[in-house]
């Protein structure tokens, strides 16, 4: 092998995990090649709307210079029924820059520009087809055009990590282990967005949405404000879409037409329609995170906290840990799994694995009772508020008695018991 086709570290995929890994290696003074299949970094990326400042700051202390759309100061939860909704909004005027919205095509590109300034070599337009394995060690990559070697390969190739599957670090996910997200970006004037969402000073809003057209499915909606567009999307369990024969774009169309949503996006002109898979993090069997000469990061390792819609921050930290581990491995000239297990230790000691452990049963439990938790109860919340906020000459007590009776009558005791047990398991699962 010639010296020109060998480097210290190859990182596959220039998303948040990949760029964080690559820049960490470059900062440690080692040679790193960052391979991206897209024309530019960010061109294949889709997300749920929020990048967390704590993670951005960790990798890019100057992240506020990046092309950010809006810092988020309105975090809302919307429970939909067929014709009504209840929204809880959290706003904090003191800490308004804990998270921000960015267009991935601009944000990821900016991140890679920073990485290049710090010595990362970017290879765009390059799809990696195979990992080169010699004597049980990953020693390089094979693209459409050539073979390229490195002491360590870091996989950051996203939810469809064909490479991690290829070398047996994980098996192909089952339909229950992935959520399919589809999203539309609707262009609206900035002033209209700010008026409709009650925003000032260029701040932004993000919404998490349950119920309504999504009721009974393991599915959630999301909506967030860019500078001059509003993004609206759904994420639904692929297993539910498959077994109930539902087209994802029809579900999104139904959500857009809900009477509580439609006025917010009225006259928005569609400028982009995207789709992406989201791994259900923390579900067994967990992917193996490393082997001889290789580590897996971000979505490729299913490092996603679905309860809090967190992914980019887990990705960035996992990339950083993989980069740090690579530096130590190079220092010791040991690229074996024995050495690289340091990466897993770093993840275990951080919020990444601690949070995934905390929530490991939540998805399983809720997905078993979706009709209740993402359908029946949101509807009951709306029924309660309909009574509470209406005046119609009928005494309130009788309405509340009827509501309470209904609550129990429309639910068999077995169902209520099962929900209560699930609720208790959820609370104890999280707190234990």
């Amino acid at each position, binding site marked *: 092998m010639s010296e020109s086709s060998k480097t210290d570290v190859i990182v596959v995929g220039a998303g948040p995990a990949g760029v964080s890994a690559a820049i960490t290696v470059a900062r440690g003074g080692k040679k790193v090649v960052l391979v991206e*299949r*897209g*024309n530019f970094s*960010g*061109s*294949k*990326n*889709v*997300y749920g709307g929020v990048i967390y400042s704590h993670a951005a700051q960790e990798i890019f202390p100057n992240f506020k210079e990046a092309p950010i759309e809006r810092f988020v100061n309105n975090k809302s939860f919307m429970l939909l029924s067929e014709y009504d909704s209840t929204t809880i909004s959290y706003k904090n005027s003191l800490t308004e820059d804990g998270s921000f919205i960015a*267009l*991935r*095509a601009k944000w990821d590109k900016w991140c890679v520009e920073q990485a290049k300034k710090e010595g990362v070599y970017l290879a*765009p*337009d*390059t*799809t990696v*087809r195979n990992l080169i394995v010699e004597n049980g060690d990953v020693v390089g990559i094979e*693209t*459409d055009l050539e073979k390229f070697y490195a002491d360590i390969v870091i996989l950051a190739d996203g*939810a*469809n990590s*064909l490479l991690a599957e290829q070398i047996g670090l994980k098996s*192909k*996910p*089952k*339909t229950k282990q*992935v959520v*399919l*997200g*589809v*999203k*539309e*970006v609707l262009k609206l004037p900035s002033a209209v967005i700010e008026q409709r969402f009650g925003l000032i000073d260029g701040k932004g809003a993000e919404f998490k949405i349950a119920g309504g057209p999504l009721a009974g499915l393991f599915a959630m909606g999301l909506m967030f404000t*860019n500078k001059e*567009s509003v*993004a609206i999307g759904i994420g639904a369990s*692929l297993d539910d*879409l*498959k077994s109930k*024969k*539902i*087209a*994802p*774009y029809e579900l999104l169309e139904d959500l857009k037409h809900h009477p509580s949503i439609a006025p917010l996006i009225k006259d928005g002109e*569609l*400028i*982009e*329609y*995207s*789709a*992406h*898979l989201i791994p259900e993090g923390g579900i067994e069997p967990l992917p193996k995170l490393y082997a001889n000469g290789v580590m897996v990061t971000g979505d490729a390792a299913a490092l996603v906290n679905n309860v809090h819609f967190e992914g980019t921050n887990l990705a960035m930290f996992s990339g950083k840990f993989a980069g740090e581990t690579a530096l130590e491995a190079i220092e010791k000239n040991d690229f074996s799994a024995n050495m690289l297990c340091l990466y897993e230790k770093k993840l275990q000691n951080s919020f990444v694995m601690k949070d995934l452990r905390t929530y490991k049963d939540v998805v399983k439990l809720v997905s078993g009772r979706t009709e209740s938790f993402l359908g029946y109860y949101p509807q009951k919340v709306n029924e309660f508020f309909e009574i509470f906020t209406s005046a119609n000459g009928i005494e309130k007590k009788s309405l509340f008695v009827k509501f309470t009776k209904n609550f129990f009558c429309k639910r068999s005791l077995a169902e209520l018991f099962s929900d209560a047990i699930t609720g208790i398991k959820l609370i104890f699962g999280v707190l234990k």
Partner: protein
Amino acid sequence: MSDLDKKLYKNTFKTSQTSHLHPDDEQCLQCLEKVCTIICPAKVYNYNESEKKLTVSYEKCLECGACRIACKYIKWNYPEGGKGVVYKNS
């Protein structure tokens, strides 16, 4: 043009000369559910009843990989480097 195609028309695609999606025609003949024709967010797959063949409009693929997970007989790979969908606002 269907409503979905009108949406897809707004996206930028750098079309490759060859398809990166390869269903197994033999298996399609026996398949009753044809789940790929339902769950694909771009409706890349359509079953042509008269020709008894799955048509694959790979040029509008959003590269999500849902079909890869939902059907074990579709050979799925990424398009060649630099090709396929180019997201600018997502």
